[in-house]
């Protein structure tokens, strides 16, 4: 399975480079104390790492969903898509864990574990939902535009729009802890699991 990712990442080299750049930037922002507030850096982390993994997954499975060879390639991927996805998620979360631990060290009031759990739930929900929408509309640019629109709306209203589902934690005053993020965390996991089940049943 790792060999598959290794080869496929060659066609996504630009995106992978961007990802590494953002990881490094995140680390530098934390280490050099650029933001005084831990929640500001956490918000920045959410708004970069969550959509980036979604886009990465869309590009990774693009061949299987939106090309002329999709039905043919599906015979190769049969029963493997969800395994590839879970492997990617695992690999992606490793540096995220480091970022969360560092945030916990540099900002004492922030609960690293809660931050990691919330980021995991967000990344899981966002990526599986992206994949489900992409499978249905089969158009990469429309899918990405829809999700950029959602994030923009969330940022613009600071998570206050009643018509939208709020997967991000946008409170800049209350520190990230299990008590403050629990409702968002649980909802994200439930909706994420539903999306994952739909994605798995469509593509596996």
């Amino acid at each position, binding site marked *: 399975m790792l*060999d*598959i990712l290794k*080869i*496929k990442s*060659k*066609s996504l080299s630009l995106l992978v480079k961007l990802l590494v750049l953002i990881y490094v930037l995140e680390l530098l922002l934390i280490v050099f104390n650029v933001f005084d507030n831990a929640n500001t850096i956490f918000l920045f982390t959410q708004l970069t790492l969550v959509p980036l993994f979604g886009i990465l997954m869309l590009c990774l499975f693009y*061949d299987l969903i939106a*090309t*002329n*060879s999709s*039905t*043919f*390639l*599906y*015979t*190769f*991927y049969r029963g*493997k898509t969800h395994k590839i996805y879970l492997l990617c998620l695992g690999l992606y979360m490793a540096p995220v864990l480091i970022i969360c631990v560092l945030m916990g060290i540099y900002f004492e009031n922030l609960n690293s574990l809660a931050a990691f759990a919330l980021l995991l739930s967000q990344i899981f929900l966002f990526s599986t939902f992206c994949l489900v929408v992409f499978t249905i509309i089969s158009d990469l640019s429309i899918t990405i535009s829809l999700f950029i629109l959602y994030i923009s709306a969330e940022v613009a209203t600071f998570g206050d729009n009643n018509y939208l589902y709020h997967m991000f934690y946008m409170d800049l005053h209350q520190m990230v802890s299990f008590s403050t993020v629990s409702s968002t965390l649980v909802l994200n996991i439930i909706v994420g699991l539903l999306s994952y089940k739909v994605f798995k049943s469509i593509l596996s």
Partner: protein
Amino acid sequence: MIKINNLSKTIKRKKILNNINVELKGITGILGPNGAGKTTLMKIIASVEKADNDTEIIYKNKNKKEIKIGFLPQNFYVYPNLTVIHVLKLLSTLKETYDENHLENLLIQLNLTEYRNEKMKNLSGGTLQRVGIAQALLNKPDYLIIDEPTTGLDINECIRLRSILLDISREIDIIISSHIPEDITSICNHLIVIEQGKKIFEGGLERFIEKSIGATYETTIYKSEIVSLNGIGSILKIEQLPGDKVKVRIATQTFLSDSSFKKVKPDFLSGYVGLLKGER
């Protein structure tokens, strides 16, 4: 042997394939006009698409119970930004059949060694098709299913591809679909013709050509007279001659007594046109 019983395929309430019963053995050619249902049939045989519920397809081999199938779809073009070797490695890893030696042998057999580090987007149509054949052979199949392999290729690439398929056919049974008669005549010994989703012929090449015996003529006329031949029969071939004249081969059910029409031995095309025009 692949035995197909009652194969039907309905898409949006329209029957694309209608009750097809065939036995595929040896080198089989599936011929038919555009839109006849060849691609759908090939995809169903290769298990890429599902047929209607009452369809039965039996895959059997002399030695083994199950047979392995390699499939080259029409217009094979995947992963434009990956190199040939990476595409083949990726597909064989996905298929769980990765074998370094076999992969290297395929590159040699299909004259792809010089293109191994070339990106897919930089390959010509003929080279792409050879990469397609290589990926279809990755799992060492018993049957190779190839859909319209020469579409869009120039003459040299067509000839090269046909000779490669002929070489492969010594070891592996091939099922090839095409609307180009030369693809079929060059390698196939068994033939299935489908039209509008129905099988209209199954048998050997000789029996196929017999479908038009006594109805093929050749005549030399002026270019301006070609249109008038449409009323007499189906034009099979037009050959340019020096000056304003052309040599025309036509197939017809009518007996032509005019001495300008010379009766000739029917060929593959005579049989094909005969079949499609209903001379069965």
